[in-house]
């Protein structure tokens, strides 16, 4: 007789582990299933972990979690071939408790987090693929795995199986994703001594910097690159929508090597030693791509529910918050002894009432707009660079004349009306 649990969670990433941890904490019997050798062994992230949502699960986690650096500075680069327009913010209020966000290495962080769920009472089983949900009378009652006699049963199955979520697709919660709904991102971890990192990024002690890079970092395609500081390594990566990659016939690793060799980037990573290369998809379809998230005996959380705000590089925090919301809905359902969709829809209501879906809704047209009108990345970033170059090059031209010249060059290329239209369209997509 296979064992029966209150909850089976599929996938020990931030969403699944949050859910398993929260369920176990409230006394439920939890099975957490991970397909990798250990939690984190299949997981990839650029590297920013936000404090707020993690803290709501484990208060003061920064005192014991394996973190790299608290981020005290966030820079944004609009990069052209041999130049960059930069802006950013550095604030030392982010260098002290409660912090704003941290860089992390996921293989280490996820192991630690899953261990916390185990300490809270969850049973973690690694090296196990869930091949399908067991459905009886229209209700998910358990999972089938690739282990011999590998069936397990529960009142609720939580699908935290990541961006590809084959399981929620199997249940008919969503169709196959289109190439414009996912971003293919590749990155490298490059080892560099701490002193070098602190010198190059103008940092003190364990303080960290993140740089988001637009424009030539993706050769004008819809996407971004990033350069983040760890303790004694850097994470450098680049991604575009899979559809852009296909359209431009880009090889992702060649794009990464292009970025690494870029004259604006090269000095930061010079002399570093590559330690790991990683590729992963990011669900970036946004609001319109969120699948059905609740059914009879089943909930979908994290990347599997497409909960990513690409514009603000938020994902793992949404994953954690959604995992916790799912746990709360399960706890209420357990009190009633009712695990039907209508009961579990408490999770959907919480999700849609929270910052997660509100933020996805705010940017619901952004990806589509920027994909359809590539001029923002392709034309305006170089234009911005040229304008700055012109304005700050002292050549005896009066500044008022320079301003006029810059405006003329922008409108001459596109026409005043086109420019106004572009500005309006971009504003509408993110307002």
């Amino acid at each position, binding site marked *: 007789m296979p064992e029966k649990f209150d909850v089976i969670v599929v996938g020990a990433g931030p969403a699944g582990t949050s859910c398993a941890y929260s369920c176990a904490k409230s006394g439920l019997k939890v099975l957490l299933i991970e*397909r*990798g*050798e250990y939690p*984190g*062994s*299949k*997981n*990839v*992230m*650029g*590297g920013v972990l936000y404090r707020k949502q993690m803290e709501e699960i484990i208060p003061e986690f920064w005192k014991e979690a394996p973190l790299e650096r608290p981020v005290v500075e966030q820079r944004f680069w609009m990069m052209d071939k041999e130049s960059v327009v930069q802006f950013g913010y550095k604030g030392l209020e982010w260098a002290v408790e409660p912090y704003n966000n941290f860089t992390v*290495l*996921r*293989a*280490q962080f996820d192991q630690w987090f899953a261990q916390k769920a185990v300490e809270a009472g969850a049973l973690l089983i*690694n*090296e*196990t*693929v869930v091949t399908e949900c067991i459905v009886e009378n229209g209700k998910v009652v358990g999972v089938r*795995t*690739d*282990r011999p006699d590998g069936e397990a049963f529960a009142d609720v199955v939580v699908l935290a199986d990541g*961006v*590809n979520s*084959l399981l929620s697709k199997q249940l008919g919660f969503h169709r*196959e*994703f*289109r*190439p414009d709904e*996912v971003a*293919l991102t*590749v*990155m*490298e*971890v*490059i080892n560099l001594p701490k002193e070098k990192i602190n010198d190059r990024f103008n940092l003190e002690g364990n303080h960290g910097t993140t740089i988001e890079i637009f424009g030539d970092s993706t050769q004008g395609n819809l996407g971004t690159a990033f350069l983040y500081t760890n303790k004694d*390594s850097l*994470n450098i990566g680049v991604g575009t929508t*899979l559809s852009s*990659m*296909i359209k431009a*016939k*880009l*090889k*992702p*690793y060649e794009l990464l*090597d292009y970025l*690494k060799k870029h004259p604006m980037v090269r000095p930061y*990573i010079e002399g*570093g*030693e*590559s*330690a*790991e*290369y*990683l*590729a*992963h*998809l990011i669900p970036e379809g946004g609001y319109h791509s969120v699948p059905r998230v609740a059914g009879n005996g089943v909930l979908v959380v994290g990347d599997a529910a497409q909960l990513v705000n690409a514009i603000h590089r938020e994902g793992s925090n949404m994953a954690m918050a959604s995992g916790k919301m799912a746990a709360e809905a399960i706890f209420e359902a357990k009190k009633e002894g009712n695990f039907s969709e209508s009961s579990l829809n408490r999770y959907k209501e919480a999700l849609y009432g929270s910052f997660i879906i509100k933020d996805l809704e705010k940017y619901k047209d952004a990806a589509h707009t920027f994909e359809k009108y590539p001029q923002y990345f392709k034309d305006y970033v170089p234009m911005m660079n040229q304008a700055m170059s012109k304005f700050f090059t002292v050549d005896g031209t009066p500044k008022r004349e320079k301003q006029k010249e810059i405006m003329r060059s922008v409108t001459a290329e596109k026409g005043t009306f086109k420019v106004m239209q572009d500005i309006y369209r971009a504003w509408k997509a993110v307002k």
Partner: protein
Amino acid sequence: MSTTNIEEKQFLLRFKCDTKSHLTVLDHDVCMTQCPDKLCTVFCPAEVYKWEGKRMQVGYEGCHECGSCRIGCPYQNIKWEYPKGGHGIVFRLA
């Protein structure tokens, strides 16, 4: 030194290979006759797919399990599963 090509990048990784491929090209004729661009050979981040004149060679051993080929194949011609539990790529860092 930091890597300069895909071979060096893949060399950094640890894989626990299964003996059986988790990626299957459903119909090699489709690649041959309908797909002049062979897009999977371009966008696959691990260069798993290599066109060998007549057949698509699938080097599943180096797969990152990202899912791009399943979503990006214009003919839905790739059956994509997870490697057996505990197998496939093993990330140690990020």
